[in-house]
């Protein structure tokens, strides 16, 4: 294979490399541009440690659900019920923990299991009965919105046990002596993470090179690594000067890494994309398409439940209105992140970036004092614009 590596003149290689990667990094660049824009117009408020921490806390449940929604969208389906399911699970958690004083670990696990059961129930109709997911989950949206109201009897219920609240409002414990305002443990974790990322990409690059695979030019690799490491370090630094890493950020990061790995590197991930890309061809290649579709809905149910718990813990109360409209933000995040409505295309990183774009815009516009009315108008236009650009790029 070594002789197959085509060596082009340096400049041409750089040119084609930029062109090929622009699409992958396009949304990331947009996110950076949007952040810079709001950083300037808000006079530096956006990236203040307190605001940045709030930004993470406010958007964690959207990101968590976007991971599940991405898989559902990749298989060519949609789940409109996630907001209602998250609200319903918050209500169940409140009833268990507040009314019946169930131990919070037990309640937590029970809630995730209920989420899985909800996902299984909806997935069954979609995968095996071939009822369009739009209809099944529209029904689910109504059912669980109603059930949340019924479980809470129309009232808010709280507060949660303090340990459970830590899920959303807690920060990782400080193990090292504090130095002024900086939390050293968080900073250390950030530094280790930055190094690990650079090391992993360097190792994979040299491994590919040793097998004669064409890799990105060295200058790009170096530049990318430096930018990545600096971004991680700077971000942790900002967070660490407030109260350190929020627990939910750790959970979220672990999930992002896990789903990124599953979608890119595992058999099941590859098969999910194949089902979305061409279900008939996948079936004739021996892939159990129904079972995979079913599985993506179960997974979505669990993640919606987790998001519901995070949201309830953050508000420290379960309200019948919790979760209202979440599904729209989650679905928008996936599509802004480059997922295809026809299935088969979409990346975990894209969905996360999409969720962050929505989050930064919400946050930035709120700081600027733009009313909720025009915020929605602008968000709607951004969604349409992002998908238009994507469709245009694919046609080209």
């Amino acid at each position, binding site marked *: 294979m070594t002789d*197959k590596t085509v060596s082009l003149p340096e400049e041409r290689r750089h040119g084609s490399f930029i062109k090929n990667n622009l699409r992958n990094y396009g949304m990331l660049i947009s996110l950076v541009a949007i952040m810079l824009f709001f950083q300037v117009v808000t006079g530096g408020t956006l990236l203040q440690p307190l605001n940045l921490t709030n930004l993470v806390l406010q958007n964690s449940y959207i990101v968590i659900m976007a991971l599940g929604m991405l898989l559902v969208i990749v298989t060519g389906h949609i789940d409109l019920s996630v907001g209602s399911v998250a609200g319903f699970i918050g209500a169940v958690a409140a009833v268990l923990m507040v009314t019946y004083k169930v131990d919070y670990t037990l309640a937590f696990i029970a809630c995730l299991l209920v989420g899985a059961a909800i996902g299984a129930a909806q997935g069954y109709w979609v995968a095996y009965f071939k009822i369009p997911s739009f209809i099944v989950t529209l029904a689910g949206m109504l059912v669980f919105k109603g059930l949340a109201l019924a479980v809470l009897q129309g009232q808010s219920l709280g507060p949660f046990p303090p340990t459970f609240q830590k899920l959303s409002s807690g920060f990782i414990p400080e193990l090292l002596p504090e130095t002024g305002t900086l939390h050293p443990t968080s900073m250390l974790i950030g530094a280790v993470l930055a190094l690990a990322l650079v090391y992993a990409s360097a190792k994979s690059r040299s491994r590919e090179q040793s097998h004669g695979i064409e890799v990105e030019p060295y200058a790009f690799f170096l530049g990318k690594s430096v930018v990545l490491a600096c971004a991680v370090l700077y971000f942790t630094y900002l967070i660490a000067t407030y109260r350190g890493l929020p627990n939910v950020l750790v959970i979220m990061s672990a999930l992002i890494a896990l789903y990124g790995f599953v979608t890119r*590197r595992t058999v099941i991930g590859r098969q999910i994309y194949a089902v979305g*890309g061409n279900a008939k061809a996948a079936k004739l*290649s021996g892939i159990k398409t129904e079972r995979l579709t079913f599985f993506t809905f179960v997974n979505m149910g669990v993640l919606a439940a987790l998001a519901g718990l995070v949201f309830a813990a953050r508000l420290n109360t379960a309200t019948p209105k919790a979760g209202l409209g979440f599904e729209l933000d989650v679905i928008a995040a996936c599509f802004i992140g480059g997922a295809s409505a026809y299935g088969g295309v979409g990346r975990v990183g894209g969905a996360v970036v999409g969720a962050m774009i929505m989050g930064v815009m919400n946050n930035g516009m709120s700081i600027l004092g733009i009313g909720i009315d025009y915020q929605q108008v602008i968000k709607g236009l951004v969604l349409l614009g992002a998908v238009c650009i994507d469709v245009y790029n694919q046609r080209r």
Partner: protein
Amino acid sequence: MTAMLEMRNVSKSFAGVQALRDVNFSVEAGQIHALVGENGAGKSTLMKVLSGVYPHGSYEGTIVFDDEERRFRDINDSEALGIIIIHQELALIPLMSIAENIFLSHPPSKLGVIDRDEVYRRTRELLAQVGLRESPDTLITDLGVGKQQLVEIAKALSKRVRMLILDEPTASLNEADSAALLERLMQFREQGIGSILISHKLNEVARVADHITVLRDGRTVDSIDCRAEPVEEDRIIRSMVNRDLAHRFPERSATIGEPVLEVSNWSVYHPIHPERQVIKNVGFSVKRGEVVGIAGLMGAGRTEFAMSLFGRSWGTNVSGSLRLEGGDMVLPSVAAAIDAGLAYVTEDRKQLGLILADDVRKNITLASLDQVAPGRVIDDIAELKVASDYRNRMRIRCSDVYQETGQLSGGNQQKVVLSKWLMTDPKVLILDEPTRGIDVGAKYEIYCIINELAEAGRGVVVISSEMPELLGICDRICVMNDGAFVGEFPATEATQEKIMRAIMRNDRNYESGEPEAAEMGGSQP
């Protein structure tokens, strides 16, 4: 009698492939003109030129209708003159009523509001004319195929048809419905309507046609006036298939071993109409190192048979015994079939074979990911090596294995599909129309690959509608018609005429007892 329609020196080519070459074709008023030829002989292309689907300027030659040269821009132009084509796949809307379908495009109306009384009155008239006793309110989906065909004809009549083109009208009809339809055609003849009948069923053609034109490779090769001379079935068949073997085939020396796949008493029913038996208790076998061809016309049941073997991926109520290397097997799913050593390369590459948006590498490994994924985690280097290896071995022309398969040519796409199935290391490969839509050079490469597969001791089954191809690459040819095998020839004895005759004889026997059939049998030497 002067001709109502005359097509003079019509030629048409697609991207360098000559589909029609100087075809002359004429139909008189009140004449039934049959157009026969193999799949791909150019019948449909000629009719598309006539009906304006291929507009004036995209072909050479002239069309004269009613003594005037016509230049149709689209199908509306030809319909305005009363030239109506009824396609093999009916173009009715299933969930609308008969009346709504007949008057879909130009319903009688007053001030833009549909005049329902008029619609019903005229629908009843038209239905009476075609002899269909159904209420105008009946939904199309509640009608059988035969009655749907009659609705199509009623629709044509509503447009004041002067020339009716029927593309394989009886292909999906039973005897009684076919007979009724042909009866209608003969009535139209009395009314001075010209008809063009495209059909594979020579007995029908012989029964109703006034004139027969045979097309082969885009040329008119025979023209028979049935009123002047007797219809000889053999003459038609010879005209249809007789040609020089234009393609070259690689040398083949077979070493045939033990049977590897044996099927007996195999029966399959239609998934949507479970009362219809599509595969009728057939037996079939392939030996190691043997290439077996399955010949037959479109709709003979070949694909359905192959897919039902492949993990019951087609049909319901599949029964019969299947033995692989002497051991009885039950293969309830595609995964089980792959594990057992079966592979099926579909005839529809784009819809069923490939994930076009994915790259070459992902498509090659899709059916055998476990080989490159120890512990269910894909080793991307191992995967890349396997994919590159197949790319070199099969000479897949692509920029690299990360190229989208949708961007490749048909031949290279087919090699990707073949790679995918070779990677599963099958004992038996079933190739369904492996060279459809592929240029001549790539065809030769595919034939070489088939040879190599057989030499490696695998059993290969090739389903093809191109008879020269089967004759060129197979050791044995089985002929399927109407869900059953109706003939089997060793390659040394097989000829196109024998195969065609096996098919046609069977079609005729299907309607045995008809006096015409007996007469035709008598006219043979």
